């Protein structure tokens, strides 16, 4: 797997030098300036409000960054033709998939860490505090959720072009974020076949809500239990691995179509 690590370093070079990641930092900085300056309904000094908005922004920006960067990795290797010299080296397609996933994940993780540190700084500036253990747990689970999101983006991009993969990934993960936690409530009022469909959907969709500890942080509910943490981490690791396997299945025999292969 050493070669997967080397492939990931190519991703880091590109993302740092393309500078699009810096746009997100500028957006975050702008948001935080607004958070510090605004005093909506006199809530400006309530740190829970700052935590809530800041963490929501970190989740949204992490989601956008994870999908938008993961879905373009493989298609752009093909369209610019760099896939040929890369795979002409002793790099397996599994190593390529894992390398791309690892590269994007590490960059997104670093960006999200910056977001968390910035939010923490603003909260402290406003006279508030975070429970350090809960903050660490929130970041770890957020990191696992990002691993799953990046794996979904990579898996979709093995068979779709970058635009189609992006649209599908945003719809799929957006639906999972918004719909999956509400399915048990909907089931209570949806009998019969539609109820069965909903149940199927409940088990099919990734449950990103399990990785979201924002309310614990905002309302100071304290840290999560060790067994629950371990269970959610295991669930996330299995999900990410499952999507990476799907990516490999989609990519292992793929023919590349830059120009005429004949």
């Amino acid at each position, binding site marked *: 797997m*050493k*070669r997967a690590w*080397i*492939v990931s*370093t*190519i991703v880091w*070079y*590109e993302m740092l*030098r*393309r500078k699009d990641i810096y746009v997100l930092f500028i957006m975050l900085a702008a948001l935080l300036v607004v958070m510090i300056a605004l005093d909506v309904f006199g809530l400006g000094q309530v740190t829970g409000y700052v935590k809530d908005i800041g963490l929501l922004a970190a989740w949204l920006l992490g989601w956008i960054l994870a999908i938008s960067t993961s879905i373009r990795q493989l298609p752009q290797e093909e369209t*610019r*033709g*760099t896939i*040929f*010299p890369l*795979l*002409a*080296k*002793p*790099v*397996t397609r599994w190593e390529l998939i894992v390398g791309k996933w690892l590269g994007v994940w590490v960059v997104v993780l670093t960006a999200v860490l910056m977001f968390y540190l910035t939010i923490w700084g603003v909260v402290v500036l406003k006279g508030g505090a975070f429970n350090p253990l809960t903050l660490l747990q929130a970041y770890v689970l957020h990191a696992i959720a990002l691993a799953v999101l990046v794996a979904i983006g990579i898996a979709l991009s093995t068979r779709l072009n970058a635009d189609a993969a992006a649209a599908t990934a945003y719809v799929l993960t957006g639906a999972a974020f918004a719909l999956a936690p509400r399915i048990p409530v909907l089931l209570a009022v949806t009998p019969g076949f539609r109820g069965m469909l909903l149940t199927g959907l409940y088990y099919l969709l990734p449950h990103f809500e399990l990785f979201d500890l924002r309310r614990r942080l905002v309302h100071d509910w304290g840290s999560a239990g060790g067994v629950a943490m371990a269970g959610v981490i295991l669930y996330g690791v299995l999900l990410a691995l499952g999507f990476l396997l799907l990516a490999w299945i989609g990519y292992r*025999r793929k*023919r*590349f179509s830059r*120009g*005429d*292969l*004949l």
Partner: protein
Amino acid sequence: MQPAIDLRGLSVTFPTPSGPVHALRDVTLSIEPGTVFGFLGPNGAGKTTTIHTLLGFLEPTAGQAFVFGQESTATIARERIGYLAENPDTYTFLTGRELLTLTGKLFLLGPAVIRERADRLLDDTALTGAADRRIAGYSRGMRQRICLAQSLMNDPDLLILDEPTGGMDPLGRMEIRRLITARKAAGKTVFFSSHELSEVELVCDRVGIVAGGRLVAEGATADLVKPGQSLERYFVDLVTAAAARTEGVP
């Protein structure tokens, strides 16, 4: 000794909406180590398909392809191959030196070997002065040279060049000829796909001519071409005849 390249009844068929396209049909070819082999054919003849099969990008529909005794789809086969693609492109956000270093790492070479080879190849390709500049700022010729340097980072036993002189100026072509001669002197094998028959005539020990997916001629240039006849004349006659024969064959 194992042949550098051994194709046994190799066929590749692409399914398309308008029916299967037979890119290669029953190609059998063996190339001994140390040979400079010219692989000729008109556009769409199957040259790039053959190369992509050798590199494991494509799996044969029938037959087998071996590189130094290893099946071409095996990763280990690519440890001894260097490859320069037609119209090569690379990671333009890297510097020339970074590209060669990362390439060396992908071959799991040690840091000292990587440094020594990168310096030597940058020097050989006249890119030492631009080594720490991003490739995005390189001219087309410089990009071709850094891609060539990249294909040599593992000191390959088999160098596969797919139309390497396309779009090159006379100096660039001379550089490629010099490189091929140097590889041959070092006992390495070069598989050289080209339209440039004069280049092939100058540097190759043997040639293979492919038309319509079939290998229609193979042998030493001197044996194939009659005295007083040019390789170009021989090639045109052969390809025209092959096209007439295969017309109507599905």
